[in-house]
């Protein structure tokens, strides 16, 4: 659906995007991650023909961008950074206007398509109020509706849940999963790791304009070969699992052992009461922070070293994490994790 080859964009002396070879496949829910200023927005704009590449090639839906953008774009719904609308017009008037402005927006079906899109994003009941009176969340929903009006095959969304409350975030996630199940490929960029972790099947990570990782999320989150055990009797558990315990923090143990069932059997056999037993997986946060440096909005902070060793301690539970940033902060010794760039927008 989207392929780029050695895509590079320079603004003056600044290389915003360097040699990026993106590969988004049909049916993906692809999450493009990276710190602020890593080149996500520039990349998205290049995919839409708004910014011209310095070198490299782009193909979207089989059409070359920017030369054949007029053929690809009608099949794409896009949210490009913040939503934008004419503030003196109503949300509905804005959607109709944008629909009328370009191709593939048949007048006959316009009213229906606009109403459907508004309903999909939870704005079915909006009145004739002008957009200037909308809340941030309503504007965001309207922006998403604008992307959906022509029932696109491909959604390219930059920070789609920006400004939404937790319920709004879940609504949009459910909507995107539903559309994806109906055959729409979703490409989104975000710096919110929990959001991507909860929604995407495939991720790419940008750092200083380079694509440092691109893989299925499931294969990135293979079990680490360790099991997290919580017990009321940690002393006896340590004694029972002699030599396998790598780390102990009160009643919580990190145990080396590929087979959780076997570990559990040993503990139960020794009469140790097990409260919980979870196969450890790497969190998306670790994966990303290992690979990326400091965001461009930070200065005077020593950049963490990308490509560091795999950290084993954080007790990220199996499966996808709930989209709660607090959940992704592991309760481990501070020196054991790479220093995360503090991003005010994630908290």
């Amino acid at each position, binding site marked *: 659906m989207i392929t780029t080859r050695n895509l590079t964009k320079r603004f003056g002396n600044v290389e915003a995007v360097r040699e990026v070879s993106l590969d988004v496949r049909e049916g993906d829910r692809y999450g493009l991650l990276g710190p602020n200023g890593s080149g996500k927005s520039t990349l998205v704009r290049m995919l839409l023909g*708004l910014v011209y590449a310095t070198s490299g090639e782009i193909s979207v839906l089989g059409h070359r961008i920017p030369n054949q953008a007029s053929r690809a774009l009608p099949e794409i719904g896009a949210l490009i950074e913040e939503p934008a609308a004419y503030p003196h017009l109503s949300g509905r008037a804005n959607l109709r206007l944008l629909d009328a402005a370009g191709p593939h927006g048949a007048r006959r079906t316009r009213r229906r398509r606009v109403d459907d899109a508004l309903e999909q994003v939870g704005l079915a009941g909006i009145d004739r109020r002008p957009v200037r009176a909308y809340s941030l969340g309503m504007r965001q929903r309207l922006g998403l509706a604008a992307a959906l009006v022509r029932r696109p095959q491909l959604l390219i969304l930059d920070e789609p849940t920006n400004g939404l409350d937790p319920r709004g975030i879940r609504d949009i996630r459910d909507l995107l999963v539903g559309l994806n199940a109906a055959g729409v490929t979703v490409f989104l960029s975000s710096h919110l790791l929990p959001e991507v972790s909860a929604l995407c099947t495939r991720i790419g990570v940008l750092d200083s304009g380079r694509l440092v990782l691109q893989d299925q999320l499931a294969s990135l989150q293979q079990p680490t070969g360790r099991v997290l055990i919580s017990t009321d009797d940690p002393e006896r558990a340590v004694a029972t699992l002699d030599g396998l315990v790598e780390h102990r923090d009160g009643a919580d143990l990190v145990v080396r052992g590929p087979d959780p069932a076997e570990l559990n059997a040993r503990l139960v056999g020794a009469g140790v009461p097990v409260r919980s037993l979870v196969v450890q997986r790497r969190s998306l946060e670790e994966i990303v922070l290992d690979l990326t440096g400091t965001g461009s909005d930070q200065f005077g902070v020593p950049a963490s070293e990308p490509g560091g060793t795999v950290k084993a301690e954080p007790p990220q539970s199996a499966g996808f994490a709930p989209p709660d940033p607090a959940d992704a902060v592991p309760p481990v010794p501070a020196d054991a994790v790479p220093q995360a760039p503090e991003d005010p927008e994630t908290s």
Partner: protein
Amino acid sequence: MIAVELFKLVRRVRTWLTIGLICALPLVVAIFIAVTHLAPPPGQASAFLSAVLDDGQLYPAAALALVLPVFLPVAVAVVAGESIAGEASAGTLRYLLARPVGRTRLLVAKLISVTTFTLVTVVAVTVTSYATGVLILGPSRAAAVGTAPGGLPGSIAPGAGGAPTAGLQAGAAITSLSGAPLTTLELVERVLGAMAFITVSMLGVAAIAIFLSTFTDSALGAALGALATLVASEVLVTLNAASVVQPYLPTRYWLAWIDFFRQPIFWRDIQRGFAIQAVYVVVFLAAAWANFATRDITT
């Protein structure tokens, strides 16, 4: 896309407010003149104003002369300056282009929208000032001025009831600037000619403002840039030392529309005015297109 741009123009309160204010200036002037009967003497103040007490039907020409130097170019520069820059700063430009609307197409639609605005404004000024002239100044007042110059309150202005009234008294026809009478049909033709000329003159300003608008995200900046160009041009037009460049200045032939009201019409400057505006429109729109079509949209 053109329909969309026109819809946006029509749905903006500012459009109608601007047109309303521009039409209000001649109305205010007419009220003052009608109340005081103090028309400026010929050769002073703006063109035709000295004659409007004699004949209210000439007031459209006087009104156009009133709004031409400042009001009209400011309004056109603001609307044209906003064309691309306004969309860019509002963020709607990227959505339009990703919709997709071709960049050339968008530029053409904007030009048509600005042209429409100019034309509507000029027509509105003409129509409202004709009504003002006939209703407030009155078509038959000229005779009164001519026959009883001393009987009017405050008719101390030396120009009131001056030379041009001779033709009026004779045939109740409207007088041209040259003193010869014009029939109503001739007057209508000439007013239409003047309207066309003024609209085209404004397109030069519009082209400059649209050109600047493709470079900046500040609508105000683009508008002021275009106005600064006009002010510079006005300064040079009156400067003898700059006579070499004067024939090429955008405002050099702005007042040539007055020649439509001479008998016979004095075509030379009118033709040059049309030509120079055409050159400005073509050159600046080509430059605007060259810039806009190749620019990275980062807003």
